[in-house]
């Protein structure tokens, strides 16, 4: 699977209760970008260069319908696959970036990103599905 790369600030935001990582209280979204993330200096969504909205891509990306449960001392995070459908040209983009859309101070703290490996542009009628599999991540 593509490597889960966390932003440095994410663990601090979790520890400071900015990000509620457990359950469904907070809404995690996935957005697209063609600019290489900087895990050291990017902390909130505004720091990341998101894809321009339009042609089927909505600013802020899509809700992942995140949830998490605990088994023993491990939290397992799950999410529902997200499909971006192009109604015109969408992209180029290379990175799927996840953030918490619920907090307001700071607004939209970043969680992590995945690198698709190369830039992709969707033509009209094409789709790009972010598949979160059986689990997105574990904590503990």
């Amino acid at each position, binding site marked *: 699977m593509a490597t889960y790369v966390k932003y440095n600030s994410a663990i601090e935001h979790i520890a400071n209760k900015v990000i509620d990582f457990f359950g469904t209280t907070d809404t995690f979204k996935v957005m697209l970008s063609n600019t290489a993330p900087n895990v050291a200096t990017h902390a909130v969504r505004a720091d990341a260069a998101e894809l321009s909205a339009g042609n089927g891509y909505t600013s802020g990306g899509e809700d992942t319908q995140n949830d998490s449960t605990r088994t023993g001392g491990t939290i397992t995070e799950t999410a529902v696959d997200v499909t971006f459908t192009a109604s015109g040209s969408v992209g180029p983009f290379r990175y799927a970036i996840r953030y918490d859309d619920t907090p307001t101070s700071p607004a939209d703290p970043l969680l992590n990103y995945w690198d698709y490996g190369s830039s992709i542009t969707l033509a009209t009628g094409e789709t790009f599905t972010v598949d979160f*599999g059986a689990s997105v991540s574990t904590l503990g």
Partner: protein
Amino acid sequence: MAHHSACPRVPAAKVWRLLPAKYIEALEHNQQISSCCRHPENHDVEALYSSDEDRAKGVPDIYVFHCTCGRRHTRFCLGSSEADIVTPDGVAMHVSEPRPFWDIR
């Protein structure tokens, strides 16, 4: 970096039993795409690795469905294939979503 081929491009019908239902349903149920694209049984499908690291693991993380019209439908697999979760009813269960792999000779 360029993607690496994991599984050759083949007619989806040839590996149909290997493809998870959600790969098929994501196309069949998408009303925003063309009619031909909603019939993945007529598509070709290939699997790729997004990076050298994924190629070393031997598990594809990209699947591309090629429609007869020329459009492509890409699935980028990010999460783990296996997980232990607890359902809303409090039942512990193991969830498995293995990635399909084929080698047509």
